[in-house]
């Protein structure tokens, strides 16, 4: 093949050399996403429970939280935590800044998902639970919330998938996850096409594995019913 001056050849060697680091980055992406999701699910559940309390300030406050964080860019939220808060004397590491921004953002979505889930449980379930002698808390704990979680599960799964992809944004403040590692390698060896391609493939594998797992879990839940 005659190669002109602009001819391009895919450098597999760049991919192989970068792969161990990319995999480490991917592992960290998984770690951060999982950690953020666990906290965001707990937080979302608490927030959704608070909206069930009629009267008082909890409900409008939670509504405001959900709407504010769902309707502003995650990138700006990350920047406010990392660049803005130090101005008020609150300095967090890139890791804690990124993690808390991801948690706050995902929890806003989770709260909304759980609220819809709680609302979707038929009223009769509550009445039935109370009439067999369960306390209010017991009815929520054993009857209402488990059903709400089952209803909310697919939407929560989608939110987790979004979270994995969204975690790429914390690379902008220096958290060393997959996107950051890809930038780091690409800007050093200038094999941008290969490295970003490999990173994209890793994200695809992560997301596909996750969607598969969620699908299986969903099916098992449906069968257990």
């Amino acid at each position, binding site marked *: 093949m005659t190669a002109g001056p602009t001819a391009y050849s895919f450098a597999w060697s760049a991919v192989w050399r970068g792969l161990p680091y990319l995999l480490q980055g991917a592992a960290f992406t998984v770690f951060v996403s999982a950690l953020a999701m666990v906290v965001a699910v707990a937080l979302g559940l608490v927030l959704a429970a608070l909206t069930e309390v009629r009267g008082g300030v909890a409900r409008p406050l939670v509504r405001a939280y959900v709407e504010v964080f769902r309707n502003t860019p995650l990138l*700006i939220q990350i920047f406010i935590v990392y660049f803005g808060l130090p101005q008020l004397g609150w300095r967090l590491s890139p890791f804690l800044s990124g993690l808390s921004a991801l948690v706050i953002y995902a929890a806003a979505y989770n709260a909304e998902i759980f609220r819809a889930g709680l609302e979707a449980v038929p009223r009769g379930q509550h009445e039935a639970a109370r009439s067999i002698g369960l306390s209010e808390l017991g009815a929520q704990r054993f009857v209402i919330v488990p059903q709400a979680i089952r209803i909310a599960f697919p939407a929560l799964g989608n939110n987790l998938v979004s979270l994995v992809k969204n975690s790429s944004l914390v690379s902008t403040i220096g958290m060393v996850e997959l996107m950051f590692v890809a930038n780091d390698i690409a800007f050093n060896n200038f094999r941008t096409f290969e490295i970003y391609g490999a990173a994209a493939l890793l994200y695809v594998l992560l997301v596909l594995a996750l969607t598969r797992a969620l699908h299986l879990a969903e099916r098992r839940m449906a069968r257990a019913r």
Partner: protein
Amino acid sequence: MSARIVLESLPYLLRGTLVTVGLSLAVIALGTAAGLTLGVLRFVPWRGVGRGIGWAVELVRAVPLLLLMFFIFFGLPAIGVGLPTLPAAVLAMSLWMMVNTAEVVRGGIQSIPTGQVEAARSLGLGWVPMMRHVIVPQAVRRMIPPFVGLCTILIKDTSLAAIIGVFELTRAAQETIERTLRSFEIYTVTAAIYFVICFPLTRLAQRAEARLARPS
């Protein structure tokens, strides 16, 4: 809080806002047109084509938008396809919008009972007229809430274009902060501007959803 600095920076931020709005509209127009086409083509009677489109959509959807943008802006020049920042951002975001719209379309079409397909077939309608007159008109109603939600996400995500250097609202905020060093105030105001654009859309999506849920 320094209200004066915020007030003085507002005109510049609003200039960025105009670009954000224009950028969003352009990407929504491009991405929706392509996504609708792709989404409907996924249901062509040739199995292989439909499946291929499905796989391609899943593949691109799994890649974070930021990486898509970096791949196009930093990666493609390596193979001789160099794009300036704005076209690169528009291309990346339109691709993102396209595949996600295609997914919304898939959901909408799959929600139509198969009886509708059988009925259209038994009337002797071909695939194109069936899609055009029977399936898509019914599916569109169900696509509207998720589609509006998608547009909101896109508007928020145009902020990523700032990272590769496109001047829009987030970039305007960054430049203002470089001058004033007031990151908390400026980013908060910036978030508020995004909120003013996105919140009505979210409301619209919720209302459309509620209307769908009501039995007609």
